[in-house]
């Protein structure tokens, strides 16, 4: 009787959150599926007319927008996540040592994480400026470049340039997670490896890395999911330009939905994005399982 009362009590406690999450996350997904098979063109025709898979077919076969955009999104995601992981791992390894001021360095390295996206975009845009940008100024001062680089308006450079910003934004979460994992590696393991004559590279390969492998896989998976759907930085820095060079899927969806008034088509592309995310997640988890079995 007491247990039953406690269980009932638990349901009462979680009910408000359950309602809100269902109404505002689960219902919209369902609504999104519905929109994606309806006309939903704000400008012409009956907006709720059923059109079946028309939008999906248009995205996948007719219009040369989805596939190039997906390729750019994969480039953007892979570049950002790989870069952020390397920065994060390097900093985490440095701060895993028991040195004075560790807490201060840790706090400083987390700062980019909380800077609002709009400010991140603005301050990088200012630093990337062609004529008065500080990056060109410093590069010229040290004699590394002869003429200013047009970071955000050159179609070949814009994508690496926005990836750098995303790395800056993304690495802190990976860093703090890897640092936590490193701190859980028993110190005795290192000592034993050192006594056995392992050098630094060997200690990393055979002691450190195996200990943080599962954390690494999980955090790169999460970072990939976040970056694949990230909108703010690219939208604010380049708006998808120049000449569509940084037109990743989230900016394509936004443009179609809120500038092109094609909600149905945009929702279909967004659904395809969700499918890609599921594929990425499943692929990662399969890798994770095979790694775990091998270990």
């Amino acid at each position, binding site marked *: 009787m007491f247990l039953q009362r406690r*269980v009932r009590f638990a349901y009462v406690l979680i009910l408000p959150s359950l309602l809100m999450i269902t109404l505002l996350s689960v219902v919209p997904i369902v609504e999104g599926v519905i*929109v994606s098979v309806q006309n939903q063109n704000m400008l012409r025709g009956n907006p709720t007319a059923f059109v079946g898979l028309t939008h999906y077919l248009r995205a996948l076969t007719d219009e040369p927008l989805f596939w190039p955009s997906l390729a750019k999104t994969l480039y953007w995601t892979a570049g950002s996540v790989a870069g952020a992981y390397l920065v994060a791992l390097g900093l985490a390894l440095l701060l895993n040592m028991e040195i004075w001021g560790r807490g201060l360095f840790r706090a400083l390295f987390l700062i980019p994480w909380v800077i609002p996206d709009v400010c991140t975009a603005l301050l990088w845009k200012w630093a990337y400026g062609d004529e008065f940008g500080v990056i060109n100024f410093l590069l010229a001062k040290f004699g590394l470049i002869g003429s200013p680089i047009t970071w955000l308006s050159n179609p070949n450079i814009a994508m690496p340039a926005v990836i750098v910003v995303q790395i800056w934004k993304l690495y802190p979460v990976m860093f703090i997670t890897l640092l936590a994992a490193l701190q859980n590696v028993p110190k005795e393991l290192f000592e034993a490896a050192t006594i056995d004559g392992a050098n630094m590279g060997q200690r990393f390969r055979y002691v450190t890395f195996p200990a943080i492998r599962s954390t690494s896989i999980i955090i790169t998976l999460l970072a990939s999911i976040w970056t694949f759907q990230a909108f703010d930085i690219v939208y604010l820095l380049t708006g998808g330009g120049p000449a569509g060079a940084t037109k990743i899927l989230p900016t394509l969806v936004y443009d179609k939905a*809120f500038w092109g008034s094609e909600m149905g088509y945009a929702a279909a592309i967004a659904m395809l994005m969700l499918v890609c995310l599921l594929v990425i997640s499943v692929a990662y988890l399969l890798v994770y399982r095979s790694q775990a079995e091998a270990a």
Partner: protein
Amino acid sequence: MQRKPTFLGLPLTYRTMIWFLAVYALLIVAVVAILFPVFWMASSSLKPQSELFARNLTMLPVNWSLENYRNVWLGTDFPIYFVNSFKVAAITTALSVAISIYAAYAIARIRFPGRYAYGLLLLVTQMFPHILLVIPMFIIMQRMGLLNTHAALIIAYTSFSLPFTIWMLRGFFEAIPQELEEAAAIDGASQLTAFHKVILPLAGPGLAAVTMFGFIRSWNEFLFALVFMQSHDLFTLPIGLASFQEEYTFRWDLLMAGAGIVTLPVLFFFLLMQRFIVQGLLGGAVKG
């Protein structure tokens, strides 16, 4: 046996001293490189226009002044955006914390059927791409007549922050020994009273961290504000600042001061609470 002095678990020798210096050199280079854009924003926001658009840039302002901040605050709609952002973030945070503490307590302490499924729901909904949710939510808000209102933002932000606030709070509650609560229950307090009088005060720092983190996330949010809001007098800071960028394209003096105003509060509160925020995110796995 006498122990030799050690450093980083290694004997203290010239070689390890050089190591030690190398590590610090690397750390300092990393801090400078990473924080340079933020430093540059701060420095630029204190410079007059003539120093911003100069052939020879100086790292620090030559004639520094708060003039740009004054111009943004007194000459534009910035105070309105600031108040709007504060209002939306404060109500969102209050609502989500009020709902979350009970839900978090339930999954931390009560083994009820469906507990696992509920936890899974919290994890999965956090993964939903916002760009996917924003289209149907725009349509739903339009249907309900809530477009271009702060209510739309508050509802959306609350639903997004619930999963992670519940998740973080659960960790903090689980760290509190269950015996304390049982003792209170034996003393005749009801479950809720025991929770309010014993657990909540003990979870104080965790609660403060979750509150702060939730506030920062609402304060920073851009996409939903961009899509839902149309009237300038209802804009929050992120979209206000973005609209600035179109209006004052070359006024980097105003833009940098504006960015400074948006960043400062979150930076201050984050640095104040970062230890607890990190602890909450990682379930206490990180040490000093």
